[in-house]
């Protein structure tokens, strides 16, 4: 049992001179440092973030919309003092938008400039010149790999890209390197932390999942949601925060088209603070329900089931 620890192994493969220091001491340390950045984690979030650092593996974060998946990556970046490099995925995303692109115009200029100066440059010299990193436009993935300062790479909504495009990510996720045919392989100069988020609109490929640690962030329980509200909406009283968390929990038990997310809960809390309420009654709830629920049918159902009367919201 003399196998290297995964970080040493990776550092050796990447040819790093010295092993980068670990970012977190323990899961508790993760928790504390995220909390100073106003991100309230729970045990599993902290454990997985800690493991991601120690095992040098990317984290795939899944869960309903608005539960703080993207916010986690931001908070981790802040906590470790790194720059956040973000790749927003969408259908139709391709290599030239995600990885790198040759700067054709600049290459063309270079060729023309060479001609007009009347230099007798051989083609092989010229080729070597125009396919150098000077003519390379870096896109987020390459940027994160080639960065020399500490970075956290966030690949947002990875379930939106096509199955084929997903394969682009595999080399980065397992080897932390990018192969450019004309240039060779660009290896990471450090071990970046990588977060991928997914709303689970489609099944991600086995190959991708296997390379990542998996973290599921569901809706928080009442206590944690209350604490989140207290942390993010400073002017609020704890009694009101508790009440808000309870109402939201009750709403989530209904069979709604779209259950209220944490970010909507926060919006609601802010609204109530601005309105100067310190506790919620039926009328305030009805009047401000549209902040939590985004479908008319949901609003009607919630009004009926939770408040027990139908209200015409027209």
């Amino acid at each position, binding site marked *: 049992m003399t196998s290297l620890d995964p970080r040493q192994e990776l550092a050796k493969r990447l040819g790093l001179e010295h092993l980068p220091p670990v970012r977190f001491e323990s899961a508790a340390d993760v928790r504390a440092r995220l909390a100073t950045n106003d991100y309230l984690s729970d*045990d599993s979030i902290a*454990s997985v973030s800690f*493991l991601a650092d*120690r095992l040098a593996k990317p984290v795939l974060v899944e*869960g309903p919309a608005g539960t703080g998946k993207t916010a986690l990556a931001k908070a981790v970046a802040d906590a470790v003092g790194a720059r956040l490099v973000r790749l927003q995925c969408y259908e139709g995303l391709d290599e030239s938008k995600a990885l790198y692109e040759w700067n054709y115009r600049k290459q063309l200029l270079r060729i023309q400039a060479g001609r007009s100066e009347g230099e007798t440059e051989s083609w092989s010299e010229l080729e070597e010149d125009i396919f150098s990193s000077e003519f390379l436009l870096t896109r987020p993935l390459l940027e994160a790999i080639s960065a020399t300062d500490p970075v956290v790479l966030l690949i947002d909504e990875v379930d939106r890209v096509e199955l084929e495009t997903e394969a682009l990510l595999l080399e980065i996720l397992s080897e932390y390197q990018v192969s450019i045919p004309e240039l060779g392989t660009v290896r990471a100069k450090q071990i970046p932390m990588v977060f991928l988020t997914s709303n*689970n609109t489609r*099944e991600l490929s086995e190959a991708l999942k296997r390379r990542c640690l998996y973290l599921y962030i569901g809706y928080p329980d009442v206590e944690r949601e209350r604490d989140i509200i207290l942390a993010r909406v400073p002017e609020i009283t704890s009694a009101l925060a508790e009440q808000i968390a309870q109402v939201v929990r009750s709403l989530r038990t209904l069979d709604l088209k779209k259950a209220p997310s944490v970010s909507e809960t926060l919006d609601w809390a802010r609204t109530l603070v601005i309105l100067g309420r310190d506790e919620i009654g*039926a009328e305030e709830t009805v009047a401000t329900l549209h902040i939590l629920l985004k479908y008319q049918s949901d609003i009607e159902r919630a009004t009926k089931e*939770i408040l027990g009367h139908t209200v015409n919201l027209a």
Partner: protein
Amino acid sequence: MLNVLADFVGELRAAGLPVSMSEHIDAARAMRVIDLGDRRALRDSLAATLVKDGDHLPVFYTAFDVFFADRGASLQDDGVTQDGESPDGAAGAEGPGQSRGDGGGGSSPLSAEQLADMLFRALRDGDQSALSRAARAAVARYAGMEPGRPVGGTYYLYRTLRSLELDRLEARLTDERAPGDDQLSQRLARDEARSRIENLKRAVERAIRERLVEDRGSAALAKSVRKPLPEDLDVMHANREELAQLERALRPLSRKLATRLARRRRRRRRGPVDLRHTVRRSLSTGGVPLDLRFKPPRPAKPEIVIIADVSGSVASFARFTLHLVHAISSQFSKVRSFVFVDGLDEVTDYFDGVDDPAVAVARINAEADVVAFDGHSDYGRAFLTFHEHFAKDVTRRTTVLILGDGRNNYHQAHAEVVADLQRRARNVFWLNPEPTSYWNSGDSVIDQYAPYCARVVECRTLRQLEAFVGGLT
């Protein structure tokens, strides 16, 4: 520890989770960097490395509880309480003594009222360690566990929970908490009480599992408490809770299926060669057609006719299938649905203009007129009725799906009707929610219909259903 991990991975695989070799290695590596004494951290680390799907987590947790049972931690818990930190002095001190001494099978010194009181207080104060103590005491008192009996925990769970009278406990909690009498605060109090009761149920379940592990060892127990993944649940024999689970699983499943099919359709771009376009392109290469151009594919979207038995035994299966097919109805040029018991009714309209098929399916149950006589399935009569009114609508483009177990209650089969449908339609498929071994036993006459169907498919789980429906387009 590595051996335990290997056994655990084996158990996960047996339960249907796809755990790869490299994930196993990751888990082993994770175990080297965390504090193994911290059970919660161990659980989260293993979950992160071994489970890659949120829907699989419940199965994982069950297996974890069995394999890494909470013995050490619970004893520590009890120790702390005995040092006098317990808020409910007498009962607290008695509780742990009870749960430990009881391993030998002694009788309970706690009276029923004391126990109920202890539970109530633990629930009211939200005191987790008091709650698990109370749960252990309750299990010792009510479950009536017998060593060596090869049953899963469900039986003991049922016995314990029945004796605890949870409804009364919930009502009491609600009353205690409800400050005002308006609907909102009532509702909040009730939901709070309910979530605490759920918490108690879980604590009881845990307590039972701990005792069972002690009795029989992890591997043996894991086998008997193994829960199938939602997509592997047998639809016909699902209990109410499992049905709710299926219902929840169905929605994302149908959404994913629709995305996949739409994508496949878009990508399948090979229509026939477009000669005009190819020749025009070939001009740039001196008339040599280097670059073949294709006509856009004309998607042959099939028409689907579903004829579903909705009598008691197979109702939930029919519901799931209707839901799934209509959820991806954009992949078909037309979907028509018929349901029957011994009468037949068209229910296509119910799905019109409803964006959630679940709503329509619920309406079918309430409103469709499917019982003509005694309310026992009569496939022969249903097929005759269908043939009489709708056979002319079945064309070469139509795929007919018949859903049912073929249990005809000894009525006449009228297989010749299905034969005629087969002549008219592109395909006739029969989906049977019963396991193949049950076919043709008792009043099942599936074999009389089978010769006239392109395929008779066993369709017991959502996974099988999804695979079949996905293959239709």
